[in-house]
């Protein structure tokens, strides 16, 4: 009872080839896709936005990845144009120079011509150089009807200390082209003169980044980034105004186009701490200090705490606290006879505080899918009755403030 002495092994190996030679049936997870839509709505019917985004990362093998991202950003609504309220009806020329809109007495002047769609596309390619070094090259382009932005960036990451410390060195360059509706206004000239120059202007921005990420222990890590940013060129908002008021009554006598310096240097320090607790909850805290040569200093604190539930659900409250000081050339208004080099009443350059309170709820379905929904409330406020106010201005809301609701849905899947 013995198997014939022929070479079973040879025949077997041919048969195995047939068995395993053809492709094995298995799902291939070539792309990690993150998709989301964001709804942003300011109270009192001001700006609202709808923003879908899709981002896909392909694993090219050996830790090499390629990421592509597409964002569409559709905005409508009115935003504060910088002018102060008046006891009289105010009339503003539309940016195109054709037509006008009026603002009722004692109302914050809002520009209601705001309607724009932005399409932004970016790609990123990460590749290991060797065991301890990686490089990441990125490209991005963003287009809206009056604005085009082109950027490139490069990041080098170096692991050391048994991969417990990672140093990052990055540089990015961005070129923006601004082609305002109705051409570029001459800064600090009267709106009524409609003194406009070139059809477009540009600016360039160079950012440098140095970062250290440190593993502290089995469940926590810490990151510190130092960023330097140099912007040169057209930095003014062509659609914003600043009021010139009568030195005793405080009533507007003229409306000027705003004017900002043509360069800005910023430095920021960013620190982030992340810790997983014993029950897999995750606590994240970050702080950013920013300062620039426009005289703005800002502090941003951001905290999240992710409660993990056994069912795969998580709930993540979020708190963000922000404050900034005003730019040196920020003024609520100009006095008659005042003739500054730069002046802006853009609320975004004024002294302000902002609070965001949010919550995110989501679920990891399995390796393949996850979803989440995020709800946030953003509240921005400044000094609406500054000590500079006099005459009728003491009766007005000089810093309109902002209240916005953000709803976001995320869905991630493998494809």
């Amino acid at each position, binding site marked *: 009872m013995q198997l014939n002495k022929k070479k079973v092994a040879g025949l077997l190996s041919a048969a195995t080839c047939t068995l395993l030679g053809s492709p094995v049936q298995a799902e291939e997870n070539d792309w990690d896709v*993150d998709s*989301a839509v964001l709804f*942003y709505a300011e109270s009192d019917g001001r700006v609202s936005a709808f*923003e879908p*985004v899709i*981002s896909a990362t392909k694993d090219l093998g050996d830790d090499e990845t390629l990421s592509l991202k597409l*964002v569409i950003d559709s905005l409508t609504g009115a935003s504060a144009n910088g002018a102060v309220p008046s006891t009289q009806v105010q009339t503003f020329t539309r940016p195109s120079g054709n037509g006008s809109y009026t603002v009722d007495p004692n109302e914050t002047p809002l520009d209601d011509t705001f309607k724009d769609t*932005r399409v*932004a596309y970016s790609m990123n390619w990460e590749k290991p150089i060797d065991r301890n070094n990686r490089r990441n090259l990125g490209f991005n382009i*963003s287009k809206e009807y009056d*604005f085009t*932005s082109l*950027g490139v960036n490069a990041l080098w990451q170096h692991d050391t*200390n*048994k*991969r*417990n410390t990672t140093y990052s060195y990055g540089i990015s360059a*961005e070129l*923006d082209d*601004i082609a305002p509706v109705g051409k570029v206004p001459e800064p600090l000239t009267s709106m009524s003169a409609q003194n406009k120059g070139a059809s477009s202007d540009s600016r360039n921005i160079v*950012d440098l*980044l140095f970062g*250290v*990420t*440190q*593993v502290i*222990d*089995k*469940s926590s*890590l810490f*990151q*510190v*980034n130092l960023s330097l*940013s140099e912007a040169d060129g057209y930095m003014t*908002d062509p659609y914003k105004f600043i009021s010139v008021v009568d030195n005793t009554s405080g009533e507007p006598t003229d409306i000027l186009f705003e004017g900002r310096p043509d360069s800005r240097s910023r*430095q920021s*320090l*960013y*620190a*982030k701490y*992340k810790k*997983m607790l014993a029950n897999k909850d*995750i606590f994240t805290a*970050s702080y*950013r200090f920013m*300062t*620039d040569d426009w005289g703005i200093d*800002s502090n*941003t604190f951001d905290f999240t705490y*992710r409660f993990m539930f056994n069912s795969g659900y998580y709930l993540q409250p979020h708190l963000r606290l922000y404050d*900034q000081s005003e730019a040196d050339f920020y003024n609520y208004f100009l006095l008659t006879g005042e003739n500054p080099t730069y002046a802006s009443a853009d609320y*975004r350059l004024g002294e302000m505080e*902002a609070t965001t309170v949010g919550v*995110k709820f989501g679920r990891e379905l399995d390796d393949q899918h996850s979803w989440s929904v995020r709800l946030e409330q*953003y509240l*921005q406020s400044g000094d609406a009755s500054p000590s500079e106010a006099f005459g009728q201005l003491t009766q007005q809301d000089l810093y309109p403030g*902002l209240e*916005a609701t*953000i709803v*976001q849905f995320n869905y991630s899947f493998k494809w």
Partner: protein
Amino acid sequence: MKTGFQWVILCAILGASGCSSLGVKPWERNLLAREDMLMEADAIDLAFDEHIYFSKEASSGGQGFAGGGCGCN
């Protein structure tokens, strides 16, 4: 405020250089390797926030490159 900033940078550099005693062994990375423990976790949320606050406040960037400016500021 400028001197304050430089002081913070100095602390950061001192902090970074004193880190060689911290860290874990390769086999102790099971928690740190989780996707939700990456510093860049929730990248889409971070990008949305960056975009919103860039267009409503005077500060931007910090964690990385903002990428893809917009005409809103």
